[in-house]
């Protein structure tokens, strides 16, 4: 199950995903605005059914991934409960793992949404009344567990501990980091500074700095800081402010949220 705040210009919704489907609540948790049930078979099937991956996109949509590979696009009205399923994007053949919307300024031609799946495949989209698929980056054997998008740079974290940076417009790889010794669970980006946070099962949380070299147009990544959460497999990591000066971490069997 996942929970995420979806910030849209008109309102903020709390979106929850589970094996049953998708639920959306008002920001104060007072009312359930909408729910969408997934087609759950009578008997447990060999393939699990669940919704996973949440992002607010295009100023008016909330996108949610599913274990079928489909991405559900919900059109959110500025007020009220009249949420509609606007589109179903069917480009992934494996369960969706994460979805991220552009957090900075997309260069021309680059999309403003990226979706990722179990096979490591990434899809780049331009949002709108109708979503358009702009490009597909095939996986190379490792699950892409989490993804972020900033100024046309796709940051992807993988099950084999690698972080890869892709050019959203061309779909080309621009950087490869042997970042962690275990499965990366979380990536987060601070849009004001381009700082990237990565948390993994190896107990480490790393802070990186993304930037673009104005002369060569190369994407650069520097390692800023490492924290080891002793004897804890990190499951969640998020910046607490848009500049990335503080961040919070959660882990398996941990009933606390650690702040750094």
């Amino acid at each position, binding site marked *: 199950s996942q929970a995420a705040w979806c910030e849209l210009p008109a309102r903020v919704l709390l979106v929850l995903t589970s*094996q049953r489907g998708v639920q959306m609540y008002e920001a104060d948790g007072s009312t359930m605005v909408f729910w969408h049930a997934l087609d759950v078979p*009578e*008997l*447990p*099937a*060999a393939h*699990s059914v*669940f919704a996973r991956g949440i992002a607010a996109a295009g100023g008016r949509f909330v996108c949610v991934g599913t274990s079928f590979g489909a991405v559900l696009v919900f059109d959110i009205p500025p007020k009220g409960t009249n949420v509609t399923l606007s589109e179903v994007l069917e480009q992934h053949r*494996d*369960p969706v*793992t994460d979805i991220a919307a552009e957090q900075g300024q997309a260069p021309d031609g680059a999309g403003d949404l990226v979706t990722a*799946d*179990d*096979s490591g495949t990434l899809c780049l989209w331009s949002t709108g009344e109708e979503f358009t698929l702009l490009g597909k980056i095939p996986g190379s*054997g*490792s*699950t892409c*567990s989490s993804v972020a998008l900033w100024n046309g740079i796709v940051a992807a974290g993988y*099950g*084999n*501990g*690698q972080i890869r940076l892709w*050019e959203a417009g*061309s779909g*080309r*790889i*621009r*950087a*490869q*980091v*042997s*970042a*962690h*010794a*275990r*499965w990366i669970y979380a990536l987060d980006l601070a849009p004001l500074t381009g700082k990237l946070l990565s948390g993994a099962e*190896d*107990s*480490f949380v*790393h802070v990186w700095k993304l930037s673009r070299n104005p002369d*060569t*147009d*190369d*994407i*650069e*990544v*520097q*390692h800023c800081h*490492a924290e*080891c959460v*002793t*004897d*804890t*497999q990190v499951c969640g990591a998020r910046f607490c402010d848009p500049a990335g000066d503080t961040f919070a971490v959660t882990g*398996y*069997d941990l*009933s606390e949220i650690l702040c750094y």
Partner: protein
Amino acid sequence: MSARTLPLLFLNLGGEMLYILDQRLRAQSIPGEKARKDEWTDVDRKRVMNDIISTMFNKKFMEELFKPQDLYSKKALRTVYDRLAHASIMRLNQASMDKLYDLMTMAFKYQVLLCPRPRDILLVTFNHLDAIKDFISDSPAILNQVDETFRRLIETYNCLSDGEFQLIRQTLLIFFQDMHIRVSIFLKDKVQNSNGRFVLPISGPVPWGTEVPGLIRIFNHKGVEVKRAEFTTAGNYVTPQREGSFELYGDRVLKLGTNMYSVTRPVETHMSGSSKNLASQAKENIAPNPLAKEELNFLARLLGGLDIQKPPGGETGFRLNLFTTDEEEEHAAQTRPEELSYKVINIEATQEPGRRAELSRILGELDVAEPRPGSAEKGEDLLALMDGL
């Protein structure tokens, strides 16, 4: 949650149980000629191991186990192992059974947590099965049963993706969440901290397919590498030598899931003052379980066909003690914190007419037919099969 988790949970916990029973039986066995009627001998030990293993790997039971389904509740699973442990002439008191189950679950929790890659859970399972085959190496019929299950595992799991294995791993970790029972063999080996949490090493070989952390490579828009940089961390990782084998026979490389008990090391668990997390575990055991009644009805139904073997030596004839002395076992039973009791419902099939009438009434109310294909009650079919053996 993954609907393919139960076989892995069952087989690995079963494997740990066999390691512990084998060690205790060896520790308590007396050479054949010197043994009194109520003491263990090597022959008895082999017989118990054979009986339990052949029950565990029964063909119909395995077929049922491998069907896609949700995990059992903790209570239902514990009951399955109670039955399994009593599939032979051996008897365990409540305290010993509790301790056995604690050791089994903490051991497997440790193995799941430390698996380098999600799919290495399969290697851990293979390690258990390799050892089980060793226990019954002189019984070709049972060996066949185990090999059948081995093949079924390979068929079902070898083709799954990393993502699917990670889902299985997460399902298992949720099952074991907040369990922090301290095990003395883990504490001594510095594998567990005194607060019950496992030590996660930040050194050693990285998983197969992962690179040692530290390298940053930059590419230009043509895909040519133009820069390299390095970063350092507190971790001290190395490249792995080779990958473990996922075939029927082979070097698994991974040590997790191999037998860590030797004859001379007694294994204790510590109950007192484990951690605040007992609160959540306590809530789970005390809160009324709507399924408990269902499970109770089915257990009652199964008792109709249960043929409890009375040990020839009398009530306490072939009892196995998981503790070093009887007094210790008694003490453990009395001092076990309420929150950690498994609250296993013990039902005795006796000859009392009143009791029999009650069971018949329950049986009468139930639809005693072949397992209904649509039934989703946890553990029903599995328990039925176990007792039919």
